[in-house]
Structure formats: structure tokens, C-alpha cells
């Protein structure tokens, strides 16, 4: 899949405290819209450290159909 091959830049993000029924046990969690290196955008979850707008992120895995990204090694 494309997002497994490419890095991405955080376009926007939020930390969700009040979760919907299906994700009550995950809260709080960070989600983001990232711009992948091919220019396409993707809404994903962030694993590990919190990220901010313009941070570089890299694909981690698909878990239960949800794409996870994390802060790219080597900082911003």
C-alpha cells in the first residue's frame, strides 16, 4: 500500500479525550491528517510521542483497519 512506502508531513492533528462508543477504551488518542510524499492526504492515528503540525511522520502499521503513523526517526 502507498502509505507503507512513503513518509508524510502532519497537516493538522488533535488529541481526542471524548471518544465515540467504539474507541472509549483508547482515549485519549491522537489523530491527524497527514500529507504523504506523493501529495495525497490521509486521516490516521498517531502512535507514540505526540506530533505537531509540520512534523515528519512515518508509517508504522495497519491495526484493525486503522493506519498508524509515528514521529519520524531523526526528529522533524
Amino acid at each position, binding site marked *: 500500500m502507498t502509505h507503507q512506502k512513503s513518509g508524510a508531513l502532519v*497537516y*493538522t*492533528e*488533535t*488529541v*481526542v*479525550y*471524548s*471518544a*465515540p*462508543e*467504539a*474507541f*472509549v477504551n*483508547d482515549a*485519549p*488518542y491522537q*489523530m*491527524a*491528517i497527514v500529507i504523504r510524499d506523493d501529495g495525497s*492526504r*490521509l*486521516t*490516521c*492515528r498517531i502512535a507514540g510521542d505526540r506530533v505537531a*503540525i509540520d512534523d515528519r511522520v512515518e508509517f508504522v502499521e495497519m491495526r484493525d*483497519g*486503522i*493506519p498508524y503513523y509515528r514521529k519520524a526517526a531523526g526528529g522533524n
Partner: protein
Amino acid sequence: MRPVAVIGIGKTAFGAFPDRDLKSLAVEAGQKCIQDGHVKPSQIEAFYLGNFAGPSFTGQNHLAPYVAAGLGITGIPATRIEDACASGGSAFMHAYSAVAAGIYDVVLVSGVEKMTSQPTPRVAEILAGAGDLSGEIKVGGTFPALFAMIARRHMHQYGTKKEELAAVAVKNHANGARNPLAQMRKLITIEQALKGKPVADPLNLYDCSLVSDGAAAVLLAPLERASEFTSKPVLVAGISQTSDLLALEEKPDITTFPAVKRAGEKAYRMAGVGPADIEFAELHDCFTIAEIIALEDLGFCKKGEGGPFSAAGCTAREGTKPTNPSGGLKAKGHPVGATGVAQIADVVSQIRGEAGDMQLPRHSMGLAQNLGGSGATAVVTILKAI
């Protein structure tokens, strides 16, 4: 196309009413409206009902004939319209179109939602159905989360501050305190608004509109017949409904709602006015950031300046552009399907000079802006004294 007027309005209180069902709320608003418009039920030729998620919240479907029966107007076409949080505005637009086209003369439009019978996580899930389930919602997005991402980006691009978001909440609470039908009639300070329980960062509880039960209704007729029913008809001077992409990730710039811009431009053109001519507005403040963006998209201030414009008091009752004198969705309440119709009723009430403690000194032309989801539907209506 012929000119169309609002000839009657009716609203229930907005709030949490455990002993009221959807039908009784819709019937109360409809009956008040029919009485206000001095119309006989037998004169009503069509019924449009704005409702977002009645079947999910209550289990009841086939809602328009169900409510029509309660109003004693069975036999006429009765249609439910769903466009997320813009369901009410969209129902109004469809009723307007039918009257303007000459298909019907007297048409009743209602909006209703009964939301408080479900626990909060379930409410969040039902509301999330207005987003894109295949992406943003699947990963854990809620409506507060989508608007939080919009707010975050707006802050990044334009330097909008949390204090400016809080100023919107403080102002709408102050206005709601004057509204006897508002759900929240409590003044708050900037400090309180900044310290609310976090919902989706940077938005906290005070940035979010309420979960509400309630209904509103308006009656439409061709202007040429309006005087048969009322001495204070209010002209629908301009109106437009537009749509846009559903998922946030598909939009090149999430700090603006192109549907609102387009609907505003078309409504201004139809009414032959510009943003400067609008004396007051009811804007769709589902979240504080949504009011700030609406101010920008409708041309009340420059792009990116909605935050400072709000913090400077320009949108307060005594400001240059009084916004949400009813308390808005934030304090008045947001029974989703009722909201667009209630906005119209509130603007009409101001124009007639019947808004009581909420009455503004300048009230001859007002605008209502109703937003669906995170911007995929917008309805803008300009109403004018005759």
C-alpha cells in the same frame, strides 16, 4: 419565481426533556407556528420536516407523516429532509423553492431532534455518521475531533488564539442568558471558558454546542398573499444551498468552508446586498471555531481575522455585527434537525421587533447560516423587513 415571505414562526424550548418524545416537540412547535401565522390547518398544502437522525436516536422512521398526523394536516405531501446539521436549513430551502415556483402557496417547515435519550458516547457515534465513515470516522474521529483539527490548522495559519475561541463562547453564553427558550442561561468568564474539560484538543467543553431536544417551525406563503395571514410578513430576500466534499482529508484548505462562501455569495447577489448591509446574523456555531470561520467566509471580516474580530467585541450585541443574539447553538442548544429552522425563526422574531430581552436596535435585515457536517452542506438565508 415569485417573492416568498415567512408568515409564522413557532419554537419549543431547547433542553433535555426526558418526558417528551420527538413527536410532541415537533407538534408543539408546529401548533405554535400555525397559530402565529393565523393559518387554518386545512390551508397548509405541503409539509417539510428537517431531521438528522430521528431513526438512530429514537428508532422511529417515516417521520414526516408521523408528525403531520399529530398536527392534523394528514393528506398533504409530507417529506423528511436529511442534510446532517443543515437538515433544517435544507428543509426550509426546499419549501421556499416550492412556494417560489408556484407549486404550493402555504407550506409548513419544521425541524426537530430528540437527542438526550442516548448516552454521550452513543450520541457521538450517531453524530459521526455525518462524517466519512470510511476514513476520518473509522480511525476514531468525532465531530469535536474534526472541528478540533480545523481549529488547530486555523491557529497555525492565522495565529488564532484559544482566548479568541473562548471569547465566542463567553459572548454566546451572555446572549443565551437573555433567551427564555435557551438551554444554557448561564454567564461564563474567559477564564472559565479556557479551563473547560478537554474534548478534542484544542477544543474543550465550552467550545462545543449542546446535546439537545427541541423543535422549531416556520410558515411560508407567496408575498402577494402574506397580508391575508399576518401584519408582519418577513421577506426571504436571498437564499442559497450548496454542497462540498464530505471528508476533511479531501479538502485542500480546511480553514474555510467553500460551501458557505458560495451560498453566501449567491444569497447576497439574489438579495442585491453585501456583507456590510447585514445588520445581524445567526451563525452555525456548532463549535466556537465554526463561528469564527463563518464570519470570514460570509465576508463580515477578512480571512484569518475572525478570531481578533470576535475578541474585539465586534460580534457582541453592541458590536458592529451582532452575531447569535439568540445564544447560538452554544447556549440556545443544538437539536440538530431543528437548528436551521430555529435560526430562521430567531431572525424573523428580531425583524418583527418581538425578540424581547434579545431585541437588537438595528433589526431590518438579518442572515441565517446553517452548516451540515464539517462543511459538506451550507444554507444561507437573508431575511428582510417589508
